[in-house]
Structures are given as C-alpha cells and as structure tokens.
C-alpha cells in the first residue's frame, strides 16, 4: 500500500474543480488511457489575464487525481505568466509530497498545464516537446527526459522512471536514459563554471518553498550543533523575517553574525536579492 500523505488522500477523496468548462479559453490534454493515466485541463482566463477558473477530468490512480486537483487549486487566481512558471515540484509540495514512484503524476499535471497554455497562445494543443522518442513503451522523448532530469536534479534512470515513466516498460532504453542524465549533468557543470543569464524569475510560492527548504536543510542543522534554532516568520518581498530560538535567542552575536550567515546561505540557494531581518516572534 502506498504511503500517501493526508493531503493526497483529501484531494483524492474530495477532488476540487472537477469537470469541464463549457467555452473554455484553453484546453490541455496529456497522457492516454493505455498508459494508465490521462489528464484534461480546462482554463477560463479573465480580461486581466488571470486564471478565473480551472477544471479537470482525469483517468488515473489516487495520486493522479490528487495532482490534478492540486494543480487547479494552485493556478486559480494566478496570472497566465505566473501559471507558466508552475513546476511539478510545486504540485508535489502542495500535496505534502508524493511517493517517489508517483512523481510522474505531478509531471503529468505540469504537462497538462503547459499544453493548455500552448493552446491559449494558439499553438498545437499537445505538449509541444521537441525531440525524439527514447522510451517506445510509454512514448517519452529525449527532451522530456532531459527536462525532468534538469528540473528535479535526477541522477539515476530509476528516478527518471518515477518522474516520467521512461524506462519502466521493457527497460530497453535504460542505457540511453543514463546517457541523457550524463549529458544534462555535463551541461549543468559547464553552466556553473561560467556565469550565465539569471534564471527565470520564481513565483512567490516557489520562493517561499525554497527559503523553507534552505533553512531546513542548510541552516538548521548547523545552528542545532550549537544548541540553537531558527524559525521562519514571514517573507515580505525579498525580505526574510526570522526569529532565533534556543541558544541563538538573546545571543548578542545573533543579530550580526548569525543573521548574516543565514543571509549568505539564502542568497546562495534562493536569490542574491534576499535580505534577512531578525524579528521577535
């Protein structure tokens, strides 16, 4: 039995925004019944370019239904531009995480959204992924594989299968998937060594998510070694408000040194524009 989060079960048992939108401004359809999951997304865009309504129909397992439901909840009220920046990770995060074997459900959500936005721009109503079919069992292209590898920092063919099914049928394409992983990693390394143009801007949700992740993974462990702790209070624009706990609270050095360490980490992992402010909370 899968270890689904409460949020996944909630969205599965009580899916939000189910159905069609008659006269939708955009429709995105991905997957097919033979592959085991499919998603059709309908969007209504208001005159200011915001997603006024989003509805879906899906064929798939509990996490496919939950991912589609979460997606509609995320994008409602967003501008079309903001919606275009939603990633599969945003969907998984909104659901409190997905079992790793089920990540492809969140990827299907992102693909349906992209298909719908392409449709809105008057482009072909299919995911306009360029490329060559690598996995013939599930019809996955090299471009799709490279993308999930890049966006989710995948390192093994097994992870690629979890994210986009490629390699999960006969397994004949696994060596080729490994080659794609190696190629993506090589390019990433190149990019890291020479400063390229700034990454595309993040949505607020993405930014907050990344700030939380950085605090959890990069900052808390170090502070805890000294008996201290940190809590994220709020994010206002690029200002991150934090409160120190334990040994750090009331430490005369915290205002200057600790806050500056936190700031340096957040600038490194989230955005160079971040400033950190200590508040009492």
């Amino acid at each position: 039995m899968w270890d689904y989060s409460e949020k996944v079960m909630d969205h599965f048992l009580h899916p939000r925004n189910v159905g069609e939108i008659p006269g939708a401004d955009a429709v995105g359809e991905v997957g097919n019944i033979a592959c085991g999951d499919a998603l059709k997304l309908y969007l209504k865009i208001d005159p200011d370019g915001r997603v006024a309504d989003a509805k879906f129909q899906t064929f798939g397992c509990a996490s496919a239904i939950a991912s589609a439901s979460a997606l509609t909840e995320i994008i409602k009220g967003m501008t079309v531009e903001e919606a275009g920046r939603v990633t599969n990770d945003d969907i998984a995060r909104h659901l409190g995480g997905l079992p790793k074997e089920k990540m492809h459900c969140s990827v299907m959500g992102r693909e349906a959204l992209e298909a719908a936005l392409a449709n809105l721009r008057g482009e072909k109503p299919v995911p306009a992924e360029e490329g060559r079919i690598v996995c013939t069992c599930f019809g996955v292209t090299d471009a799709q594989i490279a993308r999930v590898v890049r966006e989710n920092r995948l390192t093994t063919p097994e992870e690629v299968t979890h994210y986009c099914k490629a390699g999960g049928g006969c397994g004949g394409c696994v060596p080729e998937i490994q080659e794609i992983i190696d190629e993506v990693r090589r390019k990433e390394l190149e990019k890291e060594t020479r400063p390229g143009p700034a990454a595309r801007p993040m949505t607020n949700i993405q930014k907050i998510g990344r700030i939380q992740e950085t605090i959890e993974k990069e900052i808390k462990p170090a502070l805890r070694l000294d008996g201290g702790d940190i809590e994220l209070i709020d994010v206002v624009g690029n200002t991150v408000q934090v409160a120190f706990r334990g040994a750090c609270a009331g430490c005369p050095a915290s205002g200057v040194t600790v806050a500056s360490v936190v700031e340096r980490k957040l600038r490194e992992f989230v955005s160079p524009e971040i400033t950190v402010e200590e508040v009492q909370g």
Partner: protein
Amino acid sequence: MRTVYLDNNATTRIAPEVLEAMLPFLGDSYGNPSSMHSFGGGVRRHIDRARGQVAALIGADAEEIIFTGSGTEGDNTAILSALKADPTRAHVVTTRVEHPAVLALGKQLEREGRRVFWLGVDAEGMLDPDEVRAAVRDCTGVVSVMYANNETGVVFPVEEVAAIAKACGCAFHTDAVQAVGKVPIDMRRSVIDYLALSGHKLHAPKGVGALYIRKGTKFNPLIVGGHQEMGRRGGTENVASIVGLGAACELAARTMEEERTRVKALRDRLERELLSRAPDTRLNGHPARRLPNTANISFEYVEGEAILLRLNELGICASSGSACTSGSLEPSHVLRAMGVPYTAAHGSVRFSLSRYTTDEEIDFAIERVPPIIRELRAISPFGRGPAK
C-alpha cells in the same frame, strides 16, 4: 468500521479451529521434534498427524508430503529438483501467467542460459494442451503449469498437460496454491510429479506450505541441513504452523462442498449484479472453468488503484491488476497475456471470497461498488461517448 474481506486469493483468515490446534505448540509444547526425550520427541506425532491430514486432502500418501515455508519454496524446490535430476534435460516449459514464484524463477533460469518456453493463453485465460504438445521436446526437463490462476481463477487442464509431459519423459510440476481446498484433487488418479500448496490460502497461517513429491521421483533438496523431513528439507520444523496446516486441510476436506455451492452462488451473484449494474464492465477469465470463489471484473474508463482506495474507505478489501497498484508501470501480466485491452486491464478488480463471506457482505459490495465506479467515471475524460 467493519471489514468486508473480499481478497481471499491474497490471504485468508486463520480458521478458529486451526488457531486452537496451534496454540499448545506456541505455549507449553515447545519441544523440538528431533529430541530424544519425550517432551520434544512427543511433538513428532503431531507433525506426522498433520502430514497425514495434508496427504488425505489431496489423495496422497503421507510420505509423499514435505513441509515447506511457503508456496514459493515448494515451487522453487520442485522445479530445481526436477532439473537437477537429469542434467541432459535442461529445457523448461511453463506459462506466461504463472505466479511470480514460478515466473521469476523461469526468468532467472533463462538468464543462467537455459531455454524456457513460455506458453500463452487465449482471451479467456485458458491454456491449449496442443500447445504444450508442440512445446515439449526430448530435452525438456520439467513442465510447470499452475493448477488455477490467482488473478482470474481460471482452472487449467493440468491432468491432460501432465500426461503430455509424462509421455515425453519429463517431470510435471503444478503450483496448486490457489486450487487446494477449493477444487477436489486426487493424486491417486493423477500423474503429477510435484504439487505445491500454501497454508495461508486455505485458512492456515502464513509461513507454512507443503510440497507433494510422487513416490519414486528422484528428489534433490533445495534446503540442506538437518535430517528433518527425511533429509528432504533441512531446518527445525515450524511445529505450530505445520499443525495448523494439517488442521486446515482436514477442515477444507469437509468444507469444499460449501465452496462449490454456497460460496460459488455468492460469487455468481456478486458478478452478475456488478456486471448488470455498472455499464461498460467485463468479466476476465473463462466463465465456467474457474475457481468458485474468484471474480475478476474490469471497469472501463477508471483506474484500479483509485477504485481500491475508494473501496478501502468503506472497509471493502479487494485487489487490482492495474499498473499503479503494483508499483510497476505495466498492468497485470496475466491480463496482458490474455490480450485484455490495456484500458480494461487498468480498471480490473479481483474480488475473492471464502467460506467466511456472508450474504450481507455481498449485498454491501453490490450496493456500494457501482456508485464508486460512477463517481470515478464522472471525473474521467473517457467513456463519454462520441461527444468526448
């Protein structure tokens, strides 16, 4: 919340009589049957009695039965024993629809360089004996064909297949884990060499099984060690579970008629009602030549895992051949071998009953399953007719 357990091909409850028979051996009677003292040695006669009970259920002699740790162990022991018996016969014949206990062993034998012939099945999941006739050769060491399929319940013509194998001079093994206790089996009127069964499918505990080995068969043990089981399976006996298996076999002999009448009637009613109340459904497997307790139904346009988890909310336990429930991305190998369209395989649900299943439980399932299918179809983009 109450549990409506319709997943008896996965495992069954331990019969209360079985549990009672076992308890002394989990308590005061903890001796080792191999001991010289009577405190331990006295336990031996309980194992002997259980061996007799298992033998009686399938019309075998007690000495033709060895106890194992599982159905899987029995299958592995039998196939590897047969291959070892005659190294000049290295070829293996089995089916595409075996349980993983045989399927995975066959794949491994292939990787080790053996030739394995995989027999197919027809759209109703039935095996054609003529295909076996065409597949066996002078160099075939073992033919292994399951007695009844765990997913569809289809019962294979194993006696006919066994006769074909024997005529060719090769050993015949059958994985009878799903069949024992549900259909009559009589080894006195059979030419089967090896037959594997499992305790937890017939109301005995998990972790115990038995392997029938026909008298005169050249046997090679899989597990070597002490002299237990007359040197055919090393390891101190799982006394309580063996006693439980014996008790369960004796019970099964008495209740088999009920499986074939009352349980079958419940299964037929469940099947009939679900097929008529939910449109776009189909039965998987031969309609008649099936175990009396198994119903495998495909609900088109919806996915099996979603159905199971919705049923789970109501306490109804069942299984599915959908890709998502297995963690693999491909639906059931059995349904695919039958040529069931992927669309139907993804939406397949197996309901398997037992003699503990009640009328009222079947009423509950008949009442609650169709609305779940309707609700999931309301979410699905498929099955909306030409207007789609």
